[in-house]
């Protein structure tokens, strides 16, 4: 049985094709202005990569904020359920999931069989999201990867007290003016975002092993900041982190 999982996020749109639980193709593109076009494009690219035709696909499941934008989909599923399923696929003993996406962050507690026991989302405030990272990297005149990596060099992270991304940017500008090291500012920003996630985790309870998914899981600085703030080891898989929701959607198509 071949299924397609399409995760239409605010920043990127992801497609995963699975043949009996094995990934046969995956693609990530920017969502851009038109989520429907992005969904169709990423789907077609993945189909081409897999060397199959659309007719070979038994089920298409959409998830993410734009999950209702693909008329060809057989059904939709929330990203909460999909991230839970995806995390258990990659890490069968996963206890919980931290997912930091472009415009929200969430923490999901898992039960037996990948069941969602409880979850908490921040979708009201940009601080604690991938968007925050992008804005802060820009304030430091760096690309995202450079912004993440330089934080690892810091021995004395700056203290970013503002919890608002707009005011945090002002704080960063003040720190630059005061001559603070870029690595210290970057590390401070990573600590700031980590502290928000940690508050969410403790609100409904820490359960190990903690898996981190979403595009921000590729950010080594953020993973380190979270590990420091939670005092635990966090599991990530660079290959599947960003497509984790789409994996879950494809699994959902198999009736899992």
């Amino acid at each position: 049985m071949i299924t397609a999982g399409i995760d239409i996020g605010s920043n990127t749109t992801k497609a995963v094709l699975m043949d009996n639980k094995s990934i046969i193709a995956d693609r990530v593109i920017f969502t851009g202005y038109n989520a429907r076009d992005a969904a169709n494009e990423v789907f077609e690219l993945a189909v081409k990569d897999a060397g199959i035709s659309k007719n070979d696909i038994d089920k298409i499941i959409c998830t993410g904020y734009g999950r209702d934008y693909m008329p060809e989909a057989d059904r939709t599923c929330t990203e909460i359920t999909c991230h839970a399923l995806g995390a258990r696929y990659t890490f069968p003993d996963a206890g919980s999931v931290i997912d930091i996406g472009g415009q929200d962050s969430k923490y999901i507690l898992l039960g037996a069989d990948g069941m969602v026991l409880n979850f908490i989302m921040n979708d009201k405030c940009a601080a604690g999201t991938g968007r925050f990272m992008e804005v802060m990297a820009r304030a430091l005149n760096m690309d995202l990867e450079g912004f993440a990596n330089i934080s690892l060099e810091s021995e004395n992270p700056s203290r970013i007290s503002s919890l608002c991304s707009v005011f945090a940017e002002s704080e960063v500008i003040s720190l630059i003016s005061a001559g603070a090291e870029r690595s210290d500012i970057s590390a401070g920003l990573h600590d700031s975002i980590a502290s928000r996630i940690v508050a969410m985790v403790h609100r409904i309870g820490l359960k190990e092993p903690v898996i981190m998914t979403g595009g921000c899981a590729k950010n080594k600085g953020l993973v380190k900041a979270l590990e420091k703030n939670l005092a635990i080891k966090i599991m990530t898989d660079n290959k599947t982190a960003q497509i984790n929701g789409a994996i879950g959607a494809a699994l959902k198509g198999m009736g899992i």
Partner: protein
Amino acid sequence: MTNSSQENNTNENNTNTKTKAGEHLSKIMKEFYINQHLDAQAGKFCVWAAIIVPLEILRGFDIIVGIPENYSAMTASKGLGSAQCERSHQLGFSPDLCSYARIDLGNNLYPPKDAQMPPLPRPDLIITDNNNCSLLAKWFDVYHREYNIPHFILDVPFCYNPQDYDGLNYILSQYKDIIRKIENMTGQKYDIDKTREAMNNTNEALKHWKRFMNAALHKPAGITAFDSFVQMATFVTLRGTPQIVEQYKLLADETEVRIAEKIFPVPDEKYRLLWDNIAPWHQLRKMSSRLKQLDANIVYATYTSCLGTIEGGIDLYEYDGVDPLKHLARTQNFSVCPYGLELRYEVIEKLVDRCGIDGMVFANNKSCKVYSLMQLDIQKRLIDKLKIPSIMIDVDHADVTRYSEEGVFIRIEALLEQIDRYKNVC
């Protein structure tokens, strides 16, 4: 806590025609508000009362009883809440205050020239309580200062445990002070027989109310919690009057007939949910419609199940016909808010069991800290003890600017998916 408006017509059957009870509710609420103004023009004494103040006592006088909280809920349900909140901000009131208070303050102290709804008649006396809302006394103190009128605050002990003898007598003594105060201000003699008659009316009406609420036990449910939200309007404004008996009898009778005729608000009901908090007045129609599309029904709510109960209970605490003041004092804590964690959880546990609940929606209400404060602890206990999935959503009962429909519905859809997996796995 509060009620609803006649305009909030989720009280429709599934052919989208208004029910007889819905039409009758509109009629009596319209008359209620018009009559208040006519009585005020005739020079009648006017009391503004908080909704938990026993209206049956006030029925012992020939006076107007205005209910500002109902007025605010009605304003919100007409989609006018945020504009009125904004007017209170312009007067300097904080946006962090309860939206009922902001609507009411904006409406009374800075009324729009082209007001679609005239303010309540100006009061001569204010009576509030402190057991269901910590803000209420401060909110009405504004009018106490602005209008230079007395403000009686009914001081009710918080309930960590069921009410005790001293608590009952403390409340009773204050009822007597209220009666004396109104006698002195109006020159009228209090008539306890009118209160007794009012108590009989309320008791009779609440029997019909429970009959109506029992329609939620049917599978599929004969009602939604939204129906009960709307119909609460009669309880908070016309308690103790013959109109409430007539309204709730009509409501219960009609609901039972609809069940017999297999007319259900969510015909393909797959998920039965329980709601915890005040109704989101600005979303009743939208939310109930979207839930119906998902085959989900919020069948019951702690907010409307509590009418006529005592601490921790979900059944009617019946009036024995003897001492109406003592009965009112005993049921003074009927609303959910003045309960400690154990009593709050007890109510939810009973409702989950009785109503066959699949999942719970905790509405974290930005405007009601008292109702929302314990929800996280209750939710954790619910998951651990009853293995019932639940979600926490952010709402505001009357200010739509603090509500995100998509944010709420992604959580609701995730809850339904959780329920599916619970049913498959457990």
